[in-house]
């Protein structure tokens, strides 16, 4: 069981969480790689699903850090270190991205030169959708994200040492600019890695949709993480019911926003009724995919929406935990629903490699996250807003 010094908020015992996560991660990756030799095609599709699932969550945490700095939020200061540590797993996600570069031909229709040659639309798009530019863009996205995460962490940790409140202002400026950069990079990353799976199809709101799901899920992960710490009696006086209430409000707001964006995308396509647009939804309805679509509507929207509508339920830690688990599972279903129809001819096929890839990448991400989190003080002890944040009441 992990333990913490109640005065300095440094970890005196890191517990077994890190080693358990690392074990699960290595096991998951090894099994998935074995799977790659049996069915390369499914391997890449599963790996992309698992990668997109974790990358969006980690990027959601990065966004959370910048959002709180930029708005000068008080309530979230006690929770910021966890989101910061989460954003520091981005270099690991870059490593997890590299295997996908070997599967571009398996994943992306637009990499097939002979297909592009006979396809007018893909020819038209080829100045953007080509392998070289794809890799350059991915490098730019990761450089921006890792740079932002590194800068935000460095300044925040510097405040632990020199106790200088001026860092808070620098962080605010960095975050304001960072949010701008983040919005563009994430939008285009979503276009490149998920939307271009169906290169004929396009939706300008797609990046917002992917972002919202990831940010929402990162909130759910933070809720579970702080409840996990609470079980070890860590930060249980600092992260109070009122903080969980605010997380509950964030979950509520972004559940609604996710549905709003999803519905907006759907309605424009439904109204216009253009074949090159509707085929995307058709593929997500036929051959049993309607079950997954309906599951998303109810599990990702209706159930969390109705539950989180109520004041008391947002303050109930057990209910919040249930909703957090539901939303994390639903985020996976959402990514699965975005990626897999392209690869599943005639039906929903959930491969065991999906499971091992999610556990594999997730285990490694959580291991690095835990290592980063426990290496520093659990809360930013010299943040000028910390005292108000602990005393925060709804």
């Amino acid at each position: 069981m992990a333990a913490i010094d109640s005065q300095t908020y440094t970890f005196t015992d890191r517990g077994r969480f890190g080693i358990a996560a690392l074990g699960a991660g290595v096991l998951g990756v090894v099994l998935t790689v074995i799977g790659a030799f049996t069915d390369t095609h499914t391997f890449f599709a599963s790996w992309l699903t698992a990668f997109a699932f974790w990358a969006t969550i980690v990027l959601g945490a990065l966004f959370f850090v910048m959002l709180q700095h930029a708005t000068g939020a008080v309530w979230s200061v006690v929770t910021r270190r966890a989101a910061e540590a989460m954003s520091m797993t981005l270099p690991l996600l870059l490593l997890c991205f590299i295997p996908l570069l070997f599967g571009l031909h398996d994943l992306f229709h637009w990499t097939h030169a002979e297909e592009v040659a006979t396809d007018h639309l893909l020819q038209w798009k080829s100045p953007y959708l080509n392998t070289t530019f794809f890799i350059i863009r991915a490098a730019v996205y990761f450089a921006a994200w890792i740079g932002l995460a590194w800068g935000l962490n460095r300044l925040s940790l510097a405040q632990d040492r020199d106790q200088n409140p001026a860092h808070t202002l620098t962080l605010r400026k960095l975050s304001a600019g960072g949010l701008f950069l983040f919005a563009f990079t994430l939008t285009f990353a979503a276009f490149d890695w998920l939307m271009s799976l169906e290169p004929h199809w396009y939706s300008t709101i797609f990046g917002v949709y992917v972002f919202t799901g990831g940010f929402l899920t990162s909130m759910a992960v933070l809720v579970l993480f702080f409840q996990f710490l609470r079980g070890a009696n860590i930060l249980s006086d600092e992260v109070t019911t009122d903080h969980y209430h605010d997380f509950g409000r964030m979950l509520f707001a972004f559940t609604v926003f996710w549905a709003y964006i999803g519905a907006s995308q759907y309605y424009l396509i439904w109204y216009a009724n253009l074949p090159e647009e509707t085929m995307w939804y058709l593929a997500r309805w036929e051959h049993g995919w309607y079950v997954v679509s309906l599951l998303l509507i109810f599990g990702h929207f209706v159930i969390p929406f109705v539950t989180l509508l109520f004041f008391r339920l947002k303050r109930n830690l057990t209910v919040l935990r249930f909703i957090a688990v539901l939303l994390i599972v639903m985020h996976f279903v959402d990514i699965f629903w975005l990626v897999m129809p392209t690869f599943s001819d005639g039906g929903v096929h959930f491969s065991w490699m999906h499971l091992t890839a999610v556990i594999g990448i997730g285990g490694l991400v959580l291991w690095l996250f835990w290592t980063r989190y426990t290496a520093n003080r659990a809360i930013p002890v010299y943040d000028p807003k910390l005292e108000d944040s602990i005393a925060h009441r709804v």
Partner: protein
Amino acid sequence: MKTYGMIAEFSSPAALMDAAKQVRTAGYSKFDCHSPFPIHGMDEAMGLKRSPVGYIVGGMAALGAVIGFSLQTWVTTDAYPLVISGKPLFSWQAYIIITFALFVLFGAFGAVIGMFRLNRLPRLHHPLFYSEQFARVTDDGFMLHIEADDTQFDEEKTEAFLASVGGTNIELVRGA
């Protein structure tokens, strides 16, 4: 002139909150606190229940959604059945946006009208305005009043009690 109640001033938000707790513990139920800005934790100190306005909003919003959906169903399938862009007459997807808009509109009506009704507004005058010092609650005054209708109210005892919890400038307010 009928006696409306008694007001007392307190030195700070904390003193007002402390007084509110003691007034409640002493068994008074018809009292209210006034301050130039909202004080966090005051609802709890006064023992106020959650406002029922949320349920009014929920009810109104649901009503709006039902009206929005049924109006469109009636118009497009019965009153003016027109085929639009080859879609079925009962194209429920198209109804959702207006259903949602009326859901929000009626919810907003519920919030505003419900808030006014629960606050017993609008009204043109209030007996507390007979007190000259009461105007300061919009500036720098932290005040508490106990209504004369309260079963425990007694001019002398309540005055002594308010003084004992730290109230100053205690004033009996008379008015219609």
